[in-house]
């Protein structure tokens, strides 16, 4: 049976009903001041940690490669630079000294990490950044060293636009070959989505870095800074593509390609979300004026406003763009986020039309709202699906945001702004679980 996102009834039943309990709650008169200490205490309660998991193993050899290239590039820039323009010479010397210090510090922090079995799952020293962070940092160091060398060569007239264009063209060809050979294989459909979404993101970055902008100056000596930046872009494209190749080696070479399953899932979710969007059209178009009563200045107004904003943020056209760019895995995630956002809006609208949440909550009710939101988010994170972790991320953001509003003031407006966000987080977390199940189901059945 096809899974559905939770309806209002499902949401209320599962929620344990903090909101139902709030119906007709004793209201504080609008404009009342709250006790700042109590609000602060509510605001400072813990926020659930998002559960991010890097989708690939980063080997020590990948990090070493960028480090070695960084050092080799840096060694080609002299410590003492002689140029007619003393300001340019001095700037290159200063840049080199600063980068050299950074490289030495980073190398010292990496000391003794030559074990090639290092992975994201391995235990690290407490002070050591995780391998994917270090890979990112060393790639950045390599790009900075390349930019500096490019700047130096531009200042000494040793680089021209043709060299750079040829290098860019070669990487563009290599990227095309990579894409042509890309199969959406994976150990299972869920892992396939997250790994290939990551690779798609890397390929997008490579494409962006290959855009020939800004223009190369008439003479390299006219603007060494821009030439250095252009060289850095090319090297960023090159090193990102190299890392993507290494990551793809971790994807099974044989077995099912999940490309059709991903396409089917994204399309199904897109159509379901489109239907929901049509049903909610007047609320999306006209805002809170569409309700059967005036909700201005109530927590319901904020609750709806947040839900509407997020639903509009995940637009149908963005999703169509992702599908059109053949970013199948990205399309699945985007479609899931959009489906979650619209289903959440649907439950929020139904609740408000049912008369919920018209009055400003008391301090105790506010505390309960936040606790219910945290509990719902935590329960979603405790599930074993990465889709749940991904789709619930906006809810975590709104608990954090709502808490900040409480620190901003003690007026009923501040409390309403916080309450609306906590209520949204709870509704959203429950929908995230339902949509994650739906995505898993669709991927599995479409792949069979």
């Amino acid at each position, binding site marked *: 049976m096809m899974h559905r996102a939770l309806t209002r009834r499902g949401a209320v039943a599962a929620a344990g009903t903090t909101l139902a309990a709030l119906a007709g709650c004793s209201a504080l008169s609008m404009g009342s001041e709250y006790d700042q200490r109590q609000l602060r205490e509510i605001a400072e309660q813990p926020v659930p940690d998002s559960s991010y998991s890097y989708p690939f193993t980063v080997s020590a050899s990948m990090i070493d490669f960028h480090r070695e290239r960084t050092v080799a590039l840096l060694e080609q820039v002299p410590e003492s630079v002689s*140029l*007619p*323009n*003393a*300001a340019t010479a001095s700037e290159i010397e200063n840049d080199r000294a600063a980068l050299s210090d950074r490289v030495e510090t980073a190398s010292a922090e990496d000391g003794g990490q030559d074990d090639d079995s290092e992975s994201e799952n391995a235990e690290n020293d407490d002070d050591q950044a995780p391998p994917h962070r270090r890979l990112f940092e060393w790639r950045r160091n390599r790009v900075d060293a390349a930019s500096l060398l490019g700047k130096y060569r531009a200042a000494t007239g040793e680089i021209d636009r043709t060299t750079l264009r040829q290098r860019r063209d070669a990487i563009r060809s290599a990227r095309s070959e990579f894409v042509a050979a890309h199969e959406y294989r994976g150990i299972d459909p869920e892992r396939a989505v997250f790994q290939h979404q990551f690779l798609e993101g890397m390929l997008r970055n490579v494409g962006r870095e290959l855009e020939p*902008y800004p223009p190369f100056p008439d003479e390299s000596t006219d*603007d060494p800074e821009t030439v250095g930046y252009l060289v850095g872009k090319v090297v960023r494209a090159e090193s990102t593509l190299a890392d993507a190749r290494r990551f793809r080696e971790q994807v099974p070479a044989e077995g099912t390609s999940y490309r059709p399953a991903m396409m089917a899932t994204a399309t199904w979710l897109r159509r379901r979300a489109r239907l929901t969007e049509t049903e909610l059209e007047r609320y999306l178009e006209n805002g809170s004026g569409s309700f059967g009563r005036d909700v201005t200045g109530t927590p319901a107004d904020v609750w709806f406003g947040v839900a509407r904003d997020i639903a509009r943020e995940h637009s149908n056209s963005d999703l169509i763009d992702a599908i059109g760019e053949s970013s199948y895995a990205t399309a699945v995630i985007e479609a899931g986020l959009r489906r979650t956002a619209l289903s959440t809006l649907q439950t929020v609208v139904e609740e408000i039309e049912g008369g919920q949440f018209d009055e400003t909550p008391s301090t105790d009710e506010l505390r309960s709202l936040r606790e219910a939101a945290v509990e719902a988010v935590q329960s979603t994170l405790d599930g074993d699906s990465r889709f749940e972790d991904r789709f619930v991320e906006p809810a975590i953001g709104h608990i954090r945001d709502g808490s900040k509003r409480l620190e901003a003031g003690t007026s009923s407006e501040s409390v309403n702004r916080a309450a609306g966000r906590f209520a949204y987080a709870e509704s959203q977390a429950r929908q995230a679980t339902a949509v994650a199940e739906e995505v898993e189901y669709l991927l599995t059945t479409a792949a069979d």
Partner: protein
Amino acid sequence: MPSTRRDILGAAAGLSSLALAGCQSLQDESTPTEMPQTDPVTDYAVATLRRTDGTPYRYSSDDGSDERQPLVLGSNDDLDAITFESPDSETERFASFLQETDFQHWSVLLYQRQIRQCYRQRVESVWRRPESLSVTLCRERLPADRECETGTRDELGIAIRVPFPSDQFDRPSTSISSECAARLGPRETAEGQ
């Protein structure tokens, strides 16, 4: 001996007072709540004169005021107050630029600024507001193969010829940007050093 305007420009006219636009403020006529309408001015022309060993020009009524504020030259008579110290080809080119101005339809904004030797100043934009002009100057590094020293400053004269008689605008406002945004856009070679 310093050259006078007559030496440099040739033609002499009776000395007259330099009529600085901006003497008459039209500010009272504008409505304070209205957002001023601004339009980019694109058909301006620029000449510069750089001096490593002195001032590019002298202005007889110079009161040592803020170098952000330009002189506004609105007539041939206004040119009489300008004198040049070094009669070389660069100075002649700059002086000719001033002299060739048709003050019936144009006026000239004249800046005198100090600039580090390894940099140059460009005119980034000119905007017209009701009764006023707004100028943005920007700074960029000289090419790497141009000989220059750090810690040394040159004197720079910048003349901007704008397509309005000086009685059509109040005193211009000037802002200085430490970087030229146009650096990353289409490249121009219109401006001098």
